[in-house]
């Protein structure tokens, strides 16, 4: 049978190859000793008992890392503040030096003959910690007299980022008829891809090269970071990745265990494998979100938006993780006007260190957070000042006639039809029929609410200057295509082969696909920012055109004519024809050298602006605080859709992660001890089957307005589900509970939180 996706056959048969599925002869196994304290000086580490344990070959500490000359883990932004200062950034060691700054920080790395021996030996390492007070929230970090996470960073303040026009915004607020202010927390989350991290490193002393198997989102960033940290040239690191069990943003750069496995392999002369557990995931994968946004909107008497003003509190964790500071500076700033015509904006973001696991990008990386804040603010403003929440949006939407539109935050939206998307969603959900449905719920003693969000996000242009692709043609005429992005469930293999084969007008089966092959030293973005289909996909379009252009003169020669035509994989001319594949075979060099059809292509594609309107309808059982999501409508302008089934899956997944953040997920640290309280699936509620509405109550409706910023007209989908769902769900929640007297809620709205809020509101009313 034909699978729906090309990658499916191996994955449903158990033949996928994930990080921990790789093995090499004579490999040793590693285990990590992690800090049990949030803040402590390390007075002494004694590795001798561990070294003496059965099977143990090495115990690495920071001394070994320093001896090897390894540098700080790479992170932070190079942006300057208004005084021309760079962000304050501590050295981020691979293994803790003389102190630990968060629970779970790697302290030592044990290598033994079996994984069990390594784990046993970890427990034998003696570490003498001298504990000091820890701070685990932004507010505590910034409080006067707070303990310093890093002695040389006063007030734990890393950076203050400002964006927009402060004076103009202040003037707009001064002249406003109405002002509304909302604070929203986007709580710390654990990304939790289902595949825990693992790696296998092997140093070849003869060539000086490393083989490394470790999940990534693409080839370039991890290898560049590895080079910056270890000093090993990127081109000497063969990072081989096949299947990746989910990424969601946290796998774009290397983790300490990867460098430690490389170092141990070089030292011991055999391959070293590390297989992380879920506990390692919770403690040491970069965390997500962890920020609070306080927004104010200024309105005139008719409800026209005059300005937005934002004060953001960004918790970086203990160090500047790879993309943590990027979230708090760029991503929450550039889209801070949303889909609205806003004459003036101003954002001030404070980035602070806490004694917690460092934060990096997680599905949307600041974009869902700002979309959430804007749409909460609009609903709240409508509520406070007596505007209809639909009319307030309609009045302020940037209209198609105003496109392209450069926002006060400095982004140029090239296209989009926000008013039509809203109307489409309202019709799909039967918005006007809601009061009758609410009455039905009330009869059953339930609270019912409906909420919407008109979101927009910037799908990234990418950190690399361009996306290169390549095609290699084998002697048998088979074509293999390459790019630098790495998939982790997005179906790249299916999408890119289909794009390429589509231009060639041949069956996709004729094409092979290989991602992130280190043998190809190309430039290209890793997967991230919802940009890969548009960026790499466009480059694959060019690649197919380039290959055809190379083949055409050969076809003319083979057919003995001056001009050939091409259709459905066949060149024709002078009454004769030859297939592309036969031609490729004919002209293949006898020595298996470069095939004349081997091709390269590249393109640079700017940001696109996926947008949409999501609507959620919920019902609450006030006796239990349990919320049932009855209906979900996602009308999205994702531009042209390349693979409808895959795009639908991305929306489902994004909304599910939004659901998780809204109703349950929360990485909680104890405020006193700095201990991590929710570090397992027993304590951290992951969404489960049946918590989202089934396909009959989940309407996903495309409303494409194709962009001209790439060759495919695609805008990106990966993160839109989070951006739409957080505000839609919370607006529905507030709509449901406001009549019961609940004025404010923060995520996650667990049954316990909701039950308590309803009880307190009742008590207050009584």
């Amino acid at each position: 049978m034909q699978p729906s996706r090309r990658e499916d056959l191996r994955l449903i048969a158990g033949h996928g190859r994930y990080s921990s599925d790789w093995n090499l002869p004579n490999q040793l196994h590693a285990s990590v000793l992690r800090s049990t304290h949030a803040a402590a000086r390390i007075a002494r580490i004694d590795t001798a008992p561990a070294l003496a344990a059965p099977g143990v070959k090495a115990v690495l500490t920071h001394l070994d890392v320093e001896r090897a000359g390894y540098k700080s883990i790479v992170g932070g932004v190079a942006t300057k503040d208004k005084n021309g200062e760079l962000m304050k950034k501590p050295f981020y060691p691979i293994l803790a030096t003389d102190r630990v700054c968060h629970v779970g920080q790697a302290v030592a790395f044990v290598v033994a003959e079996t994984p069990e021996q390594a784990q046993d030996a970890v427990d034998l390492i003696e570490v003498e910690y001298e504990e000091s007070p820890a701070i685990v929230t932004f507010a505590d970090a910034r409080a006067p007299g707070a303990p310093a996470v890093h002695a040389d960073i006063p007030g734990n303040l890393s950076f203050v980022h400002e964006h927009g026009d402060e004076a103009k915004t202040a003037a707009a607020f001064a002249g406003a008829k109405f002002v509304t202010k909302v604070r929203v927390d986007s709580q710390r989350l654990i990304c939790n891809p289902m595949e825990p991290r693992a790696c296998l490193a092997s140093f070849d002393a003869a060539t000086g090269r490393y083989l490394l198997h470790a999940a990534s989102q693409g080839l370039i960033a991890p290898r560049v970071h590895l080079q910056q940290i270890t000093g090993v040239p990127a081109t000497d690191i063969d990072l081989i990745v096949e299947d990746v069990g989910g990424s969601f943003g946290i796998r774009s750069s290397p983790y300490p265990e990867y460098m430690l496995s490389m170092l141990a392999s070089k030292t011991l002369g055999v391959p070293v494998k590390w297989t992380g557990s879920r506990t390692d995931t919770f403690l040491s994968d970069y965390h997500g979100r962890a920020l609070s946004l306080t927004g104010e909107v200024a309105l005139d008497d008719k409800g026209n938006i005059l300005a937005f003003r934002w004060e953001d509190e960004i918790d970086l964790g203990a160090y500047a993780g790879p993309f943590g500071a990027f979230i708090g500076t760029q991503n929450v700033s550039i889209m801070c006007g949303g889909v609205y015509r806003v004459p003036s904006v101003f954002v001030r973001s404070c980035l602070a260190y806490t004694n917690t696991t460092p934060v990096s990008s997680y599905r949307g990386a600041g974009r869902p957070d700002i979309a959430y804040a804007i749409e909460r603010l609009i609903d709240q403003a409508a509520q406070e000042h007596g505007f209809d929440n639909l009319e307030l949006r309609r009045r302020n939407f940037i209209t198609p006639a105003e496109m392209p539109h450069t926002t006060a935050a400095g982004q140029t939206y090239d296209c989009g039809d926000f008013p039509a998307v809203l109307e489409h969603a309202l019709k799909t959900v039967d918005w006007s029929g809601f009061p009758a449905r609410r009455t039905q719920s009330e009869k059953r003693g339930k609270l019912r609410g409906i909420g919407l969000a008109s979101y927009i996000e910037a799908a990234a242009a990418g950190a690399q200057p361009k996306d290169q692709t390549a095609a290699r043609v084998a002697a048998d005429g088979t074509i293999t295509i390459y790019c630098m992005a790495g998939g982790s469930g997005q179906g790249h293999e299916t999408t890119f082969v289909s794009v390429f084969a589509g231009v060639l007008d041949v069956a996709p089966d004729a094409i092979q696909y290989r991602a992130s092959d280190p043998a190809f030293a190309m430039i290209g973005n890793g997967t991230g920012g919802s940009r890969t289909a548009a960026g790499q996909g466009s480059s694959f379009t060019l690649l197919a055109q380039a290959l055809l252009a190379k083949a055409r003169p050969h076809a003319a020669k083979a057919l003995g004519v001056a001009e050939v035509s091409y259709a459905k994989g066949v060149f024709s001319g002078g009454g004769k024809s030859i297939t592309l594949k036969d031609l490729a075979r004919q002209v293949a060099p006898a020595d298996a050298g470069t095939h004349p059809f081997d091709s390269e292509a590249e393109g640079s594609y700017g940001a696109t602006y996926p947008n949409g309107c999501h609507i959620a309808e919920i019902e609450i059982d006030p006796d239990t605080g349990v919320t049932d999501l009855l209906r979900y409508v996602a009308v999205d302008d994702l531009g042209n859709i390349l693979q409808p089934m895959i795009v639908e899956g991305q929306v489902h997944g994004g909304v599910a992660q939004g659901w998780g953040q809204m109703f349950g997920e929360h990485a909680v640290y104890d405020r006193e001890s700095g201990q991590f309280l929710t570090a397992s699936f027993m304590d951290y509620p992951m969404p489960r089957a049946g918590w989202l509405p089934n396909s009959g109550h989940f309407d996903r409706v495309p409303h494409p307005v194709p962009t001209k910023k790439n060759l495919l007209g695609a805008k990106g989908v990966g993160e839109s589900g989070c951006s739409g769902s957080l505000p839609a769900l919370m607006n529905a929640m507030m709509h449901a509970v406001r009549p019961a007297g609940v004025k404010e809620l923060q995520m996650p709205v667990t049954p316990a939180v909701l039950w308590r809020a309803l009880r307190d509101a009742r008590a207050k009313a009584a």
Partner: protein
Amino acid sequence: MNKIEFTINGKKVATQVEGRTLLVNLIRDELKLTGTHVGCDTSQCGCCTIHLDGKSVKSCAMLAAQADGANIVTIEGMADGDKLHPVQQAFTECHGLQCGFCTPGMIMTAASILKDHPQPTEEQIVKGLEGNLCRCTGYINIIKSVHRAAELMKA
């Protein structure tokens, strides 16, 4: 060390295991059947689900020694040569997988649900999948896949 014998995917295996060795580690590390995955350390995620004597079992929650004499089927044993098991076919048809990491466990659990409930209700499917986590799909297409597998198996 404990001497054990069992059948896995139709093949007889005789081996020695440490008392503490988990069944999943024996399957993955010694038998090299890496389709059975380890996604957690608290028996919550279900990525390691296999069939043991006809019942779905989390192979991380069992010692290898306990499998002595058992008949085990892993994801690699589900297809009949080139012919996919109907549950496997349904998962690809309905896009019930994205990254694929939870998928072997989902397929093994789904097959078990369908054994108990050949024409399952939505509730029976949801209840049956309670012990399997997925981070990619929102489960919508996984549930759809189980319904579809029921159809395929009836036909």
